[in-house]
């Protein structure tokens, strides 16, 4: 298969794309190394780093103890010392143990040193529910990090972004957190064989419509696109915005869309209260108030610990049916 530009493309999974990104970074820059729980001999909790230990050896693919505060702190120190560490935190729930390192150290050092030190660290975290991993492994806490000045927060939703955002994050002189939704690892997509870094400043319009703006990111993108297809069958054409960058938010893309469609529904797998969806709602009201034709709507996760049983887990999360219902409501149908 070939691309428009004549290059070849291959069908790969999101997991493959992340692994390709890791391999590429490790090959290109000797300062890059990967560190985390079970990333080496076990090949990664989600099999992302499978085979990397054989290719790059234990100096660069480092298994760590179950101590997020310790190994994230070590990653910050390595970055300060001139390395380009990639630290994997198994799930965002566990990152609460290293929140102190991220918030109080990584995000502040440039500021507190008067610009003398920077922390070129990339932290990868799995996030999201849907695999029946219950209430301690399933939450979406991206908004906690998107709240913090001094770090950049990315959410690749496509294989192209999974392949490209890691390198762009490594090039950034400040800490970057990349959230990989666990439901995406098995998803397949087409990827150019010469794919590389991608721009990480802008949101992407994944579908174009005239009637409302569906704004989402990460694992919810595909549910939202599914809902948009169903809505199109009812004559409602939706813009679908993939935020890609959760901090900073690309206001321009959001506002251009909402000013055009006059209606917005935000789909966000985190809990509604204090969510990114709330932040985006506020920005729309601040910047687009006079263009609105309906109250801004949100489709978020029920405010409960994520349940273990499959039917309850599904019921707690944003699903296409709920997105369709919210879209109909803002259309007055």
């Amino acid at each position: 298969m070939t691309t428009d530009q004549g290059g070849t493309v291959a069908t790969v999974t999101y997991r493959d794309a992340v692994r390709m990104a890791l391999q590429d970074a490790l090959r290109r820059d000797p300062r890059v190394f990967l560190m985390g729980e079970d990333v080496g001999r076990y090949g990664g909790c989600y099999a992302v780093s499978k085979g990397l230990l054989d290719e790059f050896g234990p100096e660069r693919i480092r298994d760590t103890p179950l101590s997020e505060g310790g190994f994230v702190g070590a990653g910050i120190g390595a970055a300060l010392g001139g390395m380009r560490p990639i630290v994997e935190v198994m799930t965002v729930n566990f990152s609460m143990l290293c929140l102190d390192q991220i918030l109080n150290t990584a995000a502040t050092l440039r500021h507190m040193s008067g610009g003398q030190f920077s922390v070129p660290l990339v932290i990868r975290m799995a996030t999201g529910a849907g695999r029946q991993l219950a209430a301690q492994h399933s939450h979406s806490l991206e908004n906690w990090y998107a709240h913090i000045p001094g770090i950049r927060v990315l959410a690749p939703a496509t294989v192209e972004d999974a392949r490209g955002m890691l390198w762009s994050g490594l090039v950034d002189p400040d800490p970057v957190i990349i959230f990989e939704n666990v439901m995406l690892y098995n998803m397949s997509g087409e990827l150019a064989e010469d794919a590389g870094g991608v721009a990480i400043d802008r949101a992407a319009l994944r579908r174009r419509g005239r009637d409302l703006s569906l704004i989402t990111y990460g694992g919810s993108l595909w549910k939202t696109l599914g809902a948009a297809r169903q809505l199109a069958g009812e004559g409602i054409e939706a813009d679908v915005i993939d935020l890609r960058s959760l901090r900073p938010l690309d206001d321009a893309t959001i506002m251009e869309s909402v000013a055009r469609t006059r209606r917005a529904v935000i789909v966000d797998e985190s809990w509604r209260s204090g969510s990114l969806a709330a932040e985006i709602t506020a920005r729309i009201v601040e910047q687009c108030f006079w263009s609105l034709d309906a109250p801004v709507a949100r489709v978020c996760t029920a405010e409960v610990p994520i349940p273990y049983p499959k039917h309850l887990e599904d019921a707690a999360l944003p699903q296409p049916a709920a997105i369709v219902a919210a879209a109909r409501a803002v259309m007055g149908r």
Partner: protein
Amino acid sequence: MGVFRMPSLGADMEAGTLVEWLKQPGDTVRSGDIIAVIETQKGAIEVEVFESGTLERHLVEVGATVPVGTGLAVIRSDGTPAGAHNDLPPVAPVAVAPPSAPATPPPLERTALAGSFGPKASPAARRLAQERGIDLDTLTGSGPEGAIVFVDVEQAWLRRGASVVTGPAKSSGVDGMRAAIAAAMARAKREIPHYYLGHSVDVSDSLDWMGRWNDSHPPADRLVFSALLAKAVALALDGFAEFNGQYRDGQFHAAAQVHLGIAIALRGGGLVAPAIHDAARLSLPQLMTALRDLTNRVRAGRFRGSELADSTVTLTSLGERGVDWVQPVIYPPQVAIIGAGAIQRRPWLVGDSIVPREICQLTLAADHRVSDGHRGGLLLREIEARLQAPEAL
């Protein structure tokens, strides 16, 4: 004690934007003073106050767009103590109730509050309605919870017969003026049963007389033919009440004076027809001064609200470089408009000889609900007679 309110500067105006305050708190104002500049679809308009006293305070900030009737400033009449403005809603005085009587919430205030929000309408719908002069109370909503949304206003605008504005809506400038003209002209053609008359008038004597006048006067005191025409029309209307006035609420209201609207084309597009007040009473030089002043102010984008709203009849003149004749459209709520084509040198029968004469084709469009063709013809003849006795103008 009075409140200076956003005036209605024409039948289609629903709201205006305050552009500039020309009087500040503490300033003395006299009835007729220009107090503010208001931006409407027709352009920036200077508005007068009709009360004398002291401007106590502004109620609206520069830049705000508010509906017609909204209080803009408090005018304290001469002799009224400062601060006596309790007819204003924002500062309702709190009554001190005796302790035994339970405080009764004032029910009227609540009603007034609910009413002031009007029907449920989205911000986008409200903005568009304001820009296009659509009354939200007349619409049925199709949005969430029955709210009026953007498309409802757009549909109403299209139903009203105005031209379709494509692309992003603009609130002022030529597009706004185009929308205003579209609304007024569509209304004229929809509501007013026009009839049309035409008459060729020999204006050679007028031009000769004007040439002699101009030879003996410096440029600033010279006349143009439009001034003679305006005076002739204003004088002729004296005996033709059914052409001078406004048609409102299903009936004609004759006007006591001739407020002669002058159609003025703007450089860059669009036109407006502000009035020269009581034109029949002005001497020809005064009328000429008024005409020049009005034209220059209109082209500079500044004219007064009362000049726009209270024309009783309109004159449209194609000018020296125009074409032979015009079949004009009445500007509602007026009931007549007089057109003048470009003056052309033509072979003309005078007695039994063919001689070159200066000919102007006068036309009249009038409202058949109010007048008939026979009287219209007499009016054109009367204008002709006035033009042929220029020394009496």
